[in-house]
């Protein structure tokens, strides 16, 4: 395209040209881009089916150029169960925030994972209800100020933040479970490999694949996009350690 130059990186064609509504610097957009890069590279654009949540990513289907079904708030795993069981040869994924997956949809999430439903769950943990104006989520950190915890989250009253990846990894139905983050280029590149791994293990029908993505919310954290990087590094990642929590393919290889 450019004479004397070779292409190193471009926005994937599987991500529609539509302008995404996300706030500047919101990691939701990075994750959309990554999932679509993997879909493009694996050549599964015509097969894959996504299930979008209620939350800031409610319009995910407007941006990712693949088949999509919108679910009621928290019910993405139930909807994906139906889709995957009806169309077992199609890769299926849910895309859910922490309010969607860990609050109103906790039952659906845990039971789908416990049943070992063979789809991938991409779980965006930004420790807040982004869409509705920054209320406390099950994942909000201890002491973190939100509109419904104006003095900081107090575990004595509302419990401790839930470590979904660790919880889900205890369920026998889960084949792969990892926590990744999008706070720097190295971690973004790593997260992309993990998304691919989820789709690959899904194709082997080994069980549920769960990827928790530690994310940000510049708007409701009341921080500039750059300042959210510090909060992620110094607060989120201290409580939510990155890494593979479970991988049945790793033990099989031994």
């Amino acid at each position, binding site marked *: *395209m*450019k004479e*004397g*130059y*070779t*292409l*190193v*990186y*471009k*926005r*994937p064609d599987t*991500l529609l040209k539509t*302008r*995404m509504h*996300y*706030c*500047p*610097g*919101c*990691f*939701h*957009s*990075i994750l959309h*881009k990554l999932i679509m890069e993997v879909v493009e590279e694996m050549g599964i654009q015509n097969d894959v089916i996504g299930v979008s949540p209620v939350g800031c990513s409610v319009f995910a289907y407007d941006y990712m150029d693949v088949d999509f079904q919108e679910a009621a708030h928290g019910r993405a795993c139930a909807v994906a169960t139906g889709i995957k069981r009806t169309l077992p040869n199609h890769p299926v994924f849910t895309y859910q925030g922490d309010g969607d997956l860990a609050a109103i949809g906790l039952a659906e999430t845990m039971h789908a994972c416990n049943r070992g439903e063979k789809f991938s769950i991409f779980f965006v943990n930004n420790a807040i209800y982004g869409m509705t104006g920054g209320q406390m989520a099950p994942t909000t950190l201890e002491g973190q100020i939100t509109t419904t915890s104006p003095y900081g989250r107090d575990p004595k009253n509302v419990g401790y933040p839930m470590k979904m990846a660790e919880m889900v990894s205890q369920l026998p139905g889960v084949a792969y479970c990892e926590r990744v983050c999008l706070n*720097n*280029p190295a971690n*973004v*590149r790593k997260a992309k490999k993990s998304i691919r791994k989820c789709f690959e293990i899904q194709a082997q029908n080994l069980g549920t694949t769960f990827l928790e993505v530690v994310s940000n919310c*510049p708007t409701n954290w009341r921080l*500039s*996009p*750059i300042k959210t*990087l510090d909060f992620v590094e110094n607060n989120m990642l201290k409580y939510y350690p990155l890494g593979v929590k479970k991988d049945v393919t790793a033990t099989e290889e031994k």
Partner: protein
Amino acid sequence: MAAKGLVEISVETCKGCGLCVHYCPMKCLAINEADTNSYGLHYAQSVEPDKCIGCANCAVMCPDGAITVYKQSN
């Protein structure tokens, strides 16, 4: 010295978040504080294009996919 890398940033797609500026190892990029795109947002631009090594860190981080990266072919 000739540039080894080249970035193109879509002014209209950019939301001026600054993540690309923050993660460019060669300090090639900056937010144009004097101008805005049609959405009223300041946008990123390459101010030291000669220093670009084509590492694509900026584009990998860019939430909105506003950046395309090329490398000089030998």
